[in-house]
């Protein structure tokens, strides 16, 4: 808790409870409290500070310092509904104040116009739920600008000829290029492609009381110990608290939303740190718990009026789960890149953002970026050429030669929305609080795998053009794990085919809003957090307008 920040009683009926303090929840809390509303943010994880943000691979990846813990919060996985789901970690998300914005890579390009119009452009595609968004890029454009200036994004406006129109430049220049970025840029241009500085939610210059990036290199998976990475904890949450109207309440694990007789949400029931049940009363509730936990909360809140889950008259809560297809190729170069320094990725290519299905034979599109996001241990067990001995002098020799001479190209692309890919409640497994655990059912569409293989071939082509001494690809297979959890409470105009409307309000419950990865209609081409935050700024504007019209009172 920040000194002097407000504390509400659970019996106080606040204006809004926001469930989750991550990319979307943090922004919404800041906007609503700035607009004069009283806001309580319930965050299931602890409030960590910069001194907790160490570079210890064990603490971060094995002890889950920043993320959901698979033993306390188990999930099950199956590929199809015919299989019996088994215990197998399928998701990782931020579980601390700031959510996944704490440990993300911070790759922050905007979605393009096509990302909102997939059905008009490519559809229909049999057996899929491909659809246009009910809002356009143009409607979201000003909010992208707000993310860039308030949350803090470094980049070069107009650097990619494929970029959608923008009304203002980035507030900061791009971060310094890395060796991997220079290699990528030169080889990409040689091939006639259009590499550009990757927009990153990392400060390249001091801004709003925050320091600039010091180039420690521990970005992906780690928290930034200097606050240069633009998590909501570093950026908008302090602004929310400074209003004196927003309380961030950590260690508050929400288990249920309660309805009153009028069919409106009357409050949010949660476990406090000591596992005591509490209920925070509120006039309206915003769930920004991520694409897995948001549908889970609705399904766990089933009641007489909504036996299949709250706000689930469409039956689509938890359905149309999308990740982003992705692949990684690794390459070895003659001279040291020292790519462990700096941050993750400095150059990207959007030439293949919108592929013509007639030409390539499948639906989709995506991006390539140049990066190095192996920390030392994970490099040693996963970053060496596949034929390298796994131990002994030859292993050590390769490790000590390659670590500073290696880079990666990361490909990311579309995932088709399929109703058969979804989150549901596991009938047997419970979490440490006794709540039904998540069950993921997921199998990639064949086009997603074709696309990512095609994109990865472009990555290999680029590495050849760059004169890599050696190159190889990490196995491409059907995904059974993701950190990008999208589409599970999709937005739409029709209550039969969507869960929320364009105000992010559920079609079924008038004072309940959902905003996070679950709102997405289609997957974009990777790096969805920027768009989730633009949606959050827009959603907060809509909520403010509705509240001021008196539509949210009980």
């Amino acid at each position: 808790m920040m000194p002097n920040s407000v504390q509400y009683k659970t019996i106080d009926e606040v204006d809004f409870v926001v469930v989750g303090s991550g990319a979307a929840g943090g922004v919404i809390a800041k906007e609503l409290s700035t607009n004069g509303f009283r806001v309580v943010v319930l965050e299931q994880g602890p409030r960590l500070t910069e001194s907790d943000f160490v570079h210890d691979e064990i603490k971060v990846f094995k002890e889950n310092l920043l993320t959901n813990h698979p033993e306390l919060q188990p999930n099950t996985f199956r590929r199809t509904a015919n299989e019996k789901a088994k215990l197998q970690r399928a998701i990782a998300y931020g579980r601390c104040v700031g959510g996944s914005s704490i440990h993300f890579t911070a790759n922050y390009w905007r979605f393009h116009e096509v990302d909102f119009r997939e059905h008009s452009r490519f559809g229909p595609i049999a057996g899929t739920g491909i659809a246009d968004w009910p809002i356009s890029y143009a409607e979201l454009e000003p909010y992208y600008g707000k993310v860039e200036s308030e949350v803090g994004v470094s980049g070069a406006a107009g650097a990619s000829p494929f970029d959608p129109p923008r009304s203002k430049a980035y507030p900061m220049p791009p971060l310094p290029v890395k060796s991997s970025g220079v290699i990528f840029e030169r080889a990409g241009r040689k091939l006639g492609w259009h590499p550009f500085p990757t927009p990153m939610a990392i400060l390249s210059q001091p801004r709003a009381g925050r320091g600039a990036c010091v180039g420690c290199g521990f970005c992906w998976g780690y928290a930034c110990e200097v606050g240069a990475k633009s998590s909501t904890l570093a950026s908008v949450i302090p602004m929310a608290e400074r209003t004196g109207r927003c309380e961030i309440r950590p260690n508050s694990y929400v288990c249920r939303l309660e309805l009153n007789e009028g069919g409106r949400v009357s409050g949010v029931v949660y476990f406090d740190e000591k596992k005591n049940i509490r209920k925070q009363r509120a006039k309206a509730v915003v769930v920004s718990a991520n694409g897995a936990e948001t549908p889970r909360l609705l399904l766990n809140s089933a009641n007489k009026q909504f036996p299949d889950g709250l706000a689930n008259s469409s039956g689509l809560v938890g359905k149309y789960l999308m990740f982003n297809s992705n692949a990684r190729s690794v390459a070895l170069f003659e001279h040291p890149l020292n790519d462990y320094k700096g941050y993750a990725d400095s150059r990207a290519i959007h030439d293949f953002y919108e592929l013509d299905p007639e030409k390539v034979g499948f639906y989709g599109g995506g991006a390539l970026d140049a990066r190095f996001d192996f920390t030392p241990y994970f490099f040693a067990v996963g970053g060496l050429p596949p034929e390298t001995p796994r131990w002994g002098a030859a292993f050590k020799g390769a490790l000590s030669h390659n670590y500073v001479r290696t880079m990666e190209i990361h490909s990311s692309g579309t995932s088709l929305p399929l109703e058969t890919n979804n989150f549901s409640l596991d009938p047997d497994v419970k979490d440490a609080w006794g709540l039904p655990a998540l069950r993921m059912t997921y199998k990639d569409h064949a086009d997603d795998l074709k696309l990512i293989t095609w994109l990865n071939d472009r990555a290999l082509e680029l590495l050849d053009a760059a004169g890599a001494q050696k190159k190889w690809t990490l196995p491409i297979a059907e995904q059974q794990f993701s950190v990008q959890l999208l589409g599970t409470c999709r937005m739409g105009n029709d209550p039969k085919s969507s869960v929320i409307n364009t105000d992010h309000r559920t079609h079924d419950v008038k004072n309940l809003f959902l905003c996070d990865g679950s709102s997405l209609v289609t997957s974009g081409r990777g790096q969805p957090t920027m768009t989730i935050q633009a949606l959050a700024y827009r959603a907060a504007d809509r909520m403010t307008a509705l509240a001021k019209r008196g539509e949210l009172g009980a």
Partner: protein
Amino acid sequence: MDETRTRRKFLLQGVGGISAAWTATHWPAAVAAALHARGAMQSSSPTAFEFFTTEMAAEIEAAAARIVPTNDTPGAREAGVVCFIDRALMTFTKNDQELYHEGLKQLQARTRELYPTIPKFSSATPEQQDEILRSLDTGATQSDRPFRPGPEGQGFFETLRQHTILGFLIDPDADRRGNKDGVGWRVIGREREHMFRPPYGHYDAGYRGWEQTQTEPENK
């Protein structure tokens, strides 16, 4: 040279060697990074095993020294990997205690089986030790990736291999008793710093700055 102290001094004394302008721009961040280094002050206590007996530790140390051997550069032995594993088995990987007990028995049994005159693994020659370990190495079915579930029923050798590498390369300023004096990072060419300025490597050293591509994209 005591690198821990050097680094701490470097950070606390106001980022010596870096230009005043840079320091002014980055000062709050530099201070935070200095605080970050404080973990270093708590590390390096004398060797006292919490899980292993001295005899067990000698066997584990000998095996780890074949996984990351000492040659012209330091290996698992110099990095104190056995101390790291000892603590690991009392902290984040308690579940593997039984695996180590069984694995040590297996190591002993395999040594006697292959070399009946040799009393224990640690008494064998390096070549013999490699032979013994090869016979226990069933291969990794998949690599260890962040957050991903590991392969089920992973055996003793693969666990020891991963723990040895982890103990060799873990952040020396994490309080884990591994990567003693940062030798593992020195071997792989990683500087023991947490602040870096460009140019970072060979290829960006002569970079002249971002220039807009002049050509117009074709429609793909």
